[in-house]
């Protein structure tokens, strides 16, 4: 197998007008080379200023780099070029949510759900944001999208997420569905970890597939002061457990399996 990045770079060099920059930029982004990915995306936007996919790629790279303002600007440009663009709506929702503005996130999430009505993660995210808003905002939102699933019932009645400060369940967009993560110093790191976790899931899935190892089951990172375990309870969710380093990794795996089963039951109740 050849290195895909090398191959795509060669393709782009031989045909600089080619749209292969989109694939190359994404591959570099997935490999954790944001600076090079940014240059590729910028070059692509320069060559194809009317191409929504080029601005979308640039926006995702900027969001990875934490430049929310520039990322939002790029996604807004995508929506100008391609109204209803799924990725741009999700991206703008994510940025608003991360900025502590669920009300600002909701219209983008609803537009995204309109474009992808079967996306379970999006439906849950919409409900979660609605619940975070006050009653009048939630009523307005419900009236605007009456076909969306109704409630996040049981979020408070589910023991793994109630007792634990070391379990978090995320949807496919990296939005938190339930649970809280605390760092060893007691600070809430749920959203910071969630931002990275979506990439881990994608990376694990890709690595297992390309190495012919079948579906990925879990990823574990062991540190001197704690262990992280990530696993996918369903194809569109990711569960992360964080435990003190005194908890043996094998035991953490058993705890994670139990939590994954509970998460599946919980998600079924929501459906």
């Amino acid at each position, binding site marked *: *197998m*050849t*290195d895909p990045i090398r191959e795509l770079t060669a393709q782009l060099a031989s045909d600089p007008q080619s749209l292969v920059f989109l694939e190359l930029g994404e591959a570099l982004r*997935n*490999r*954790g080379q944001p600076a090079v990915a940014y240059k590729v995306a910028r070059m692509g936007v320069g060559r194809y200023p009317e191409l929504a996919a080029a601005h979308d790629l640039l926006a995702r790279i900027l969001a990875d780099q934490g430049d929310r303002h520039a990322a939002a600007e790029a996604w807004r440009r995508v929506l100008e070029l391609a109204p209803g663009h799924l990725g741009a709506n999700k991206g703008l929702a994510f940025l608003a949510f991360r900025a502590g503005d669920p009300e600002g996130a909701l219209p983008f999430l609803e537009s995204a759900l309109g474009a992808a009505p079967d996306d379970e993660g999006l439906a849950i995210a919409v409900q979660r944001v609605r619940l975070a808003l006050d009653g009048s905002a939630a009523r307005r939102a419900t009236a605007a999208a009456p076909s969306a699933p109704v409630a996040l019932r049981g979020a408070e009645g589910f023991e793994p997420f109630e007792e634990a400060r070391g379990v978090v369940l995320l949807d496919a967009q990296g939005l938190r569905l339930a649970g809280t*993560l605390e*760092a*060893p*110093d007691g*600070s809430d*790191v749920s959203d*910071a*970890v969630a*931002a*990275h*976790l979506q*990439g*881990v899931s994608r*990376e*694990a899935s*890709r*690595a*297992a597939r*390309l*190495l*012919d*190892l*079948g*579906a*990925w*089951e*879990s*990823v*574990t*990172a*062991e*540190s*001197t*002061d*704690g262990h*992280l375990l*990530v696993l996918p309870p369903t194809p569109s969710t990711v569960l992360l457990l*964080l435990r003190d380093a005194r908890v043996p990794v094998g035991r953490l795996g058993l705890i994670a399996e139990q939590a994954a089963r509970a998460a599946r039951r919980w998600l079924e109740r929501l459906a």
Partner: protein
Amino acid sequence: MRNLGEALERVTRVAGIRGAMLVAEADGLVVAEALAEGLDGAAVAALAASLTLRLRRTATSAGLAVPHVVQLRAERGTVLSVPVGDDLLLVAVAERDANLGLARLELRQAAVQLGS
């Protein structure tokens, strides 16, 4: 380089280990490898380095120290990665029924051997 060969052999001696390799963490390129036939070293190196980097970011964002072992478990096998110094990773690919406890131990000792 003798130490390098010895360190890789130490890991590949464990039953069920299909290969071990030393990888540059920054770019995922192979530094040295001892792999079973059919295992694509370049792919293993790139994917393991990328995944390890992401796990490191996730762990540090959770307030944890840099991981000393990263493990990807899949249906038909496992990929293990441990840091060697600041710039390298020692990576092993194990079959599903490999003795992972022993593999992790040998991997960490080999990493110490290489880092010293």
